[in-house]
């Protein structure tokens, strides 16, 4: 009845929800059989999953691990599971897995890439998980110089003099910034190490090496291959593309016309060109432009190209995060007296990167999988190797087993990255706790 006056005499206490609001039966009804149409879809999907597993699982299990060729595989499977059975020939993986992982890297030196991989994981750990002791960051700063030395070998003084370049860059930053402003400082910090690496590092290494010889067996880039190659290219490109992408994104937003134009030009050019073109440039064209006699390592060239490619995409992903930040955040930082770089580092970037995590990780995953493109310019990554193995008369005709193995290894890495990004998003969520 409308309009009847009402006054509550006492307030209602809080009560627990009814017991029917939980339990497995309720879950089944709500998620699988909420209506007759959804029930049919559920049954159809279950049928499809059953169909796929019923064919795939026997193939995976009824397999041969010991044969030395595809024909021998088929004979073994027919002998043990009856003629006409189709089964997987995992023997090819058993025979070739070392090649698929290490390429032609000398087998007595396998410990070096394994140690390098372990060191890399240890160096990434304190960056990925802030709960770990901060002292581990010292390891993180030495590993970038140590790992290439472990992989390629040679004089210990080369990584030392390359690390010296980074120290010089830092010194330039600290010296120039108070004299000529922070932009000049950043430029000097970029320029000084590059000049050192181009002209100073080589002679310095030679000098130190002749004074105190410290070297391990060197391994040529030709011997690199398999997953070791993919992981090397992938990890370097991923870790370098993030900071370069941040700088490009900031440059694109800059008020300085030339900086802005250069950044926009770079990003649009790289994004407008397929990666495979850049790889061909790296493998073929660069030789024409470099002075004759310079040996510019092919893997290094490829890494640079993949990094630049990833950085251009990264810049756009981060620009999206920057655009999502309200203007008030910039103003509040400025009103407190924070200068541009401090505001970026403490206020803007932590929030922009957090917003961009899904996009950043997608780019990382994309870059890691794109490393397989190097097989087209003749580097023997896992795909390049799989072609070589399939061309072998013993294994001619094998497809699923090889590609399945390669796919499984790539999946492990990509799935780990994806899970980590979800962990990070949950950890950084400060809105509804």
């Amino acid at each position, binding site marked *: 009845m409308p309009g009847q006056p009402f006054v509550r005499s006492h307030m209602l206490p809080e009560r627990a929800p009814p017991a029917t609001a939980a339990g497995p039966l309720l879950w089944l009804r709500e998620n699988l059989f909420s209506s007759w149409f959804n029930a049919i879809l559920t049954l159809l999907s279950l049928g499809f999953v059953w169909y796929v597993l019923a064919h795939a699982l026997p193939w995976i299990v009824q397999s041969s691990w010991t044969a030395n060729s595809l024909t021998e595989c088929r004979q073994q499977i027919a002998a043990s599971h009856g003629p006409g059975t189709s089964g997987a020939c995992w023997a090819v993986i058993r025979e070739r897995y070392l090649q698929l992982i290490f390429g032609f890297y000398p087998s007595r030196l396998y410990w070096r890439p394994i140690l390098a991989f372990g060191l890399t994981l240890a160096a990434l750990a304190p960056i990925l998980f802030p709960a770990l002791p901060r002292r581990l960051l010292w390891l993180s700063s030495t590993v970038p110089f140590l790992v290439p030395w472990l992989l390629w070998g040679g004089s210990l003084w080369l990584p030392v003099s390359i690390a010296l370049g980074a120290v010089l860059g830092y010194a330039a930053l600290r010296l120039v910034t108070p004299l000529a402003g922070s932009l000049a400082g950043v430029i000097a910090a970029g320029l000084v190490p590059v000049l050192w690496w181009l002209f100073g590092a080589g002679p310095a290494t030679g000098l130190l090496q002749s004074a105190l010889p410290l070297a391990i067996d060197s391994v040529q880039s030709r011997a690199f291959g398999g997953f070791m190659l993919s992981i090397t290219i992938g990890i370097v490109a991923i870790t370098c593309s993030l900071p370069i992408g941040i700088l490009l994104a900031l440059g694109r937003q800059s008020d300085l016309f030339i900086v802005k134009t250069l950044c926009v030009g770079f990003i649009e050019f790289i994004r407008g060109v397929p990666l495979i073109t850049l790889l061909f440039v790296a493998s073929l064209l660069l030789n024409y432009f470099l002075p004759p006699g310079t040996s510019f390592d092919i893997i290094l060239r490829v890494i640079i190209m993949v990094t630049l490619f990833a950085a251009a995409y990264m810049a756009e992903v981060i620009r999206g995060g920057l655009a999502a930040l309200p203007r008030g955040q910039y103003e509040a930082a400025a*009103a*407190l*007296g924070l200068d541009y770089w401090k505001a970026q580092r*403490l*206020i803007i970037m932590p929030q922009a990167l957090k917003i961009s995590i899904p996009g950043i990780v997608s780019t990382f995953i994309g870059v890691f999988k794109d490393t397989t493109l190097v097989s087209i310019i003749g580097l023997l990554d896992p795909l390049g190797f799989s072609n070589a193995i399939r061309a072998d008369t013993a294994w001619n005709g094998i497809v699923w087993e090889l590609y399945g193995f390669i796919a499984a290894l790539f999946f492990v890495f990509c799935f780990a990255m994806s899970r980590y990004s979800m962990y990070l998003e949950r950890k950084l969520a*400060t*809105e509804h*706790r």
Partner: protein
Amino acid sequence: MSDPSNARDIDRSRMAVRDEVAIRIAGMNKWYGSFHVLRDIDLTVHVGERIVVCGPSGSGKSTLIRCINRLEEHQSGSIVVDGIELSSDLKNIDKVRSEVGMVFQHFNLFPHLTILENCTLAPIWVRKVPRREAVETAMHFLEKVRIPEQALKYPGQLSGGQQQRVAIARALCMRPRIMLFDEPTSALDPEMIKEVLDTMIALAEEGMTMLVVTHEMGFARQVANRVIFMDQGQIVEQNAPEAFFGNPQSDRTKLFLSQILGN
């Protein structure tokens, strides 16, 4: 609008206006493109003054106080804050900004940092105060705005009124000599306006120099020693609050007051 009838008594013992000049604006003009936002602004603010700036929306009142800490750039005339002239010299700008606290309409707390980190960030990174001392100062001011128990929460977990009080504490942690308020209560629910105004009154009682853009005429009556009315980018009228509300001179002021006071 807060009701002046429930206002508490204000302790005026430390609210003296001194001869020392805090801000001097002379012949200042500003354009957005070809739109003339601020026209020939002359304004001298003495240390200890509480000035309320009011006016219809689009009158340039927010732009005026945002020029004082250079969130907006003026194109002609001069602004001298605490003896430092605002020019394009970045060092001067950062110096002025660290002496002038600002409170925004939408609080603008940093959502990725806790309340305590919001308050200690600028003292640590701009003033180079040791962390422990910065934390002590922050807790001192969080107690002043009566939310020390929220120190470890994130801004998203606080109500609007609490967030705005944190924003005031954050500005105070830099020990500013001047405080600017840009419509500090406009984005708040009515029941939260009072807690923020009380915090501002307590600040005025300590003798802080304040410039407040607001529509809270109750606050202007109680706390301000001067009310400035702006329209179309210029100062139309300024007077002591009793005279401003009791006997407005300009027709524009009369019209504005009749609209905002609703009778």
